């Protein structure tokens, strides 16, 4: 027996670590254990939001959107541009809205099913600066950065989607959207989210995605791209231009994230509950709009509650109040049975330092444990959304792996209670420790999350290695992944067709998926 086992072991050749990452920290693990609001409080906030929509209303200027509301029975005050939504209309909308939104990656292993308490964490935003991997200094972001961050996101285990990391500041506006989506899709097989500044560029992006997906039907079945639309300007105002883009996206069947980002104390009440009321009202006004436009349109509630530092007026992304509110919104979305997008895991720190670490851990953990479905901004973001860093991608991916491990929780079963193992180890023939048990062997790769960058060695080993700090170690890993990670290419001929059709500026060597 023992000899047979040894033989079969030998036959396995050199030991390789099995790929158990998806078991340790599974994408889509079920959250919902952390609940900052009680059931009663959720109801009060929800009810208050409906009151806001009915009493205060939202500002919608004369537009197609306003007509859509008017046709549905909303009260339109043309003198003040206020649209007041009857409670019944909003409640009916909520009841009929899709409870799940399916998003696809080029590789189906990366598909996302948003809804319920399934948690996914990913990148986000549109940083305008990058900490240069070589110099460490902040500089303007470029299209090459969009591509390289995409490739890194593809390589990292605990980054579940790629919302473009930064702005290609080396491109003119007309080329921006289509090139950003191209650089992203060419470098990752994960789902790609972005934004479009105009309806025309949205149409281009859609044509690009259709070509990659292999046809309109294929794209509809497997949406490789989705759109963030900041259609409101808090408090309670529809922004005409972005609403136009939202309208087009809904009509074209693109999954949309209704992003609204009020700052408590500045563009929403200083009372956190009041910010939640206003934000929930804004989200419900948007949901009502998309569902009136096209019943069943794939829509994700995009709550981004933040804080204004009232000492300066600065935007704050790393505070405890931010963490509380971004967890609470997962509960509000769930109350409506509609998927939730939110923002967490960002920081106000300028470099990946201790401040960055604790701010990211606080907010990311809170939102994930609360069961938010699509947590963006959670990889690499610094300086209150203005800067992104390669080494921070690597560090935050490890943090998010740890968070997803916590979301997964503790499995309590007859087996895991371990009665027999305990009895055996502590029994007369037992070893007195668990290091060599069959259970330890069986679970060593699935029960524990092993960070790539955290240092758990002895001080002596660490010093012998030159005593590198986390940032230094993460830089090494980022470089290594960028140099070695290969991305699954587009289907044959697709890249040439895209380059013929669009003015694509990304140098071919940076289009990993060619």
């Amino acid at each position, binding site marked *: 027996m023992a000899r047979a086992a040894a033989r079969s072991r030998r036959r396995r050749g050199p030991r390789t670590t099995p790929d158990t990452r998806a078991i340790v920290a599974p994408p889509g693990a079920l959250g919902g254990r952390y609940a900052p609001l009680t059931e009663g409080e959720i109801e009060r906030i929800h009810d208050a939001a409906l009151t806001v929509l009915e009493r205060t209303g939202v500002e919608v200027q004369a537009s197609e959107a306003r007509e859509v509301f008017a046709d549905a029975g909303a009260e339109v005050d043309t003198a003040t541009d206020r649209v007041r939504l009857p409670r019944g209309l909003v409640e009916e909308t909520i009841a009929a809205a899709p409870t799940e939104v399916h998003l696809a990656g080029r590789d189906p292993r990366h598909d996302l099913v948003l809804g319920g308490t399934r948690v996914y964490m990913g990148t986000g935003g549109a940083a*305008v600066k990058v900490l240069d991997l070589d110099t460490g200094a902040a500089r303007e972001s470029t299209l090459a950065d969009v591509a390289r961050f995409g490739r890194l996101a593809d390589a990292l285990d605990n980054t579940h989607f790629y919302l473009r990391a930064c*702005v290609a*500041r080396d491109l003119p*506006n007309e080329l*921006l959207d289509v090139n950003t989506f191209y650089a992203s899709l060419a470098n990752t097989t994960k789902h790609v989210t972005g934004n479009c*500044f105009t309806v025309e560029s949205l149409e281009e992006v859609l044509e690009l995605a259709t070509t990659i997906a292999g046809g309109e039907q294929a794209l509809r079945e497997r949406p490789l791209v989705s759109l963030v639309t*900041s259609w409101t*300007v808090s408090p309670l105002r529809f*922004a005409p*231009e*972005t609403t136009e883009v939202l309208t087009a996206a809904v009509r074209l069947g693109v999954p949309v994230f209704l992003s609204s980002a009020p*700052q408590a*104390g*500045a*563009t929403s009440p200083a009372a956190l509950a009041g910010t939640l009321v206003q934000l929930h009202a804004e989200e419900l006004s948007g949901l009502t709009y998309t569902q009136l436009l096209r019943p069943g349109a794939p829509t994700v509630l995009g709550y981004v509650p933040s804080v*204004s530092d*009232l*000492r*300066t*007026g600065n*935007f704050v992304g790393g505070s405890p109040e931010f963490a509380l509110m971004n967890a609470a919104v997962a509960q509000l979305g769930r109350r409506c049975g509609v998927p939730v997008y939110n923002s967490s895991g960002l920081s106000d720190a300028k470099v990946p330092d201790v401040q960055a670490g604790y701010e990211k851990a606080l907010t990311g953990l809170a939102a994930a444990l609360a069961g938010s479905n699509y947590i963006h901004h959670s990889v690499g973001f610094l300086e209150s959304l*203005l800067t992104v860093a390669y080494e921070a991608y690597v560090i935050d991916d490890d943090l998010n792996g740890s968070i997803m491990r916590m979301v997964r929780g503790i499995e309590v079963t007859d087996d895991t209670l371990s009665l027999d193992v305990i009895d055996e180890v502590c029994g007369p023939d037992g070893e007195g420790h668990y290091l060599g048990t069959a259970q330890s062997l069986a679970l060593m790769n699935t029960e524990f999350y092993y960070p790539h960058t955290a240092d758990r060695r002895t001080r002596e080993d660490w010093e012998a290695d030159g005593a590198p700090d986390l940032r230094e170690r993460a830089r090494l890993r980022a470089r290594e992944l960028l140099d070695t990670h290969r991305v699954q290419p587009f289907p044959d001929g697709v890249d040439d067709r895209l380059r013929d059709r669009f003015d694509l500026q990304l140098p071919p060597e940076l289009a990993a998926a060619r």
Partner: protein
Amino acid sequence: MTTADDELDLTTLDDAELYELMGEDLYDGLREDVIEGVTEALARGHAAYDVLTDGLVAGMEQVGIDFRDGVLFVPEVLLAASAMKGGMELLRPRLAETDAPRAGTLVIGTVKGDIHDIGKNLVGMMMEGAGLEVIDLGINRSADDFVAAVQEHRPELLGMSALLTTTMPYMREVIEALAEAGLRDDLHVLVGGAPVNEEFAEAIGADAYCRDAAVAAQTARQLLGARTAVPAGG
């Protein structure tokens, strides 16, 4: 009505005490009290310009310093700015009658394609606090909008805000449109917004970049001081 005890009779104060009190009331954001103080000073026959400089501007200077140092918070500064505005409403018509330097007017807006306005609003409010008349054009404003507003209000200062890298370049177009309309030389152009910096401001031919609202107010006073000898406090 307050009781006789805490109702201070302003007429019993000497001039120095009156101005000191005005400054304190301003600091505390007591709009009505500031208006009373200004009214009393004018009733004593003081020139509007002196009331402005010795009373209001002096008071606001301390507000600016304490905001910068983190002692006062934004809501407190806004209260003070509102009190300042209350006092200015009384003074402005009188200032206009005399040949005293104008306190200055600022036209401000967020440029076309951009809907970010929190920073712009903060700057506007700080400028009001500094005694300027502020014309806020709102968000998503075209070069034509800016030109028309400058033609109408003839401001000393024009402020543009952009939070997007994609809308920043539009600031240059506005400056060019102003030049074409022959309005550029009479104006100080200030620009700001998170992605904007000194270098960019210089490249597009703006007069100043300000990284925050406190710096904006300070810069405005310096610029106006240089041109019109308006009180250059702070």
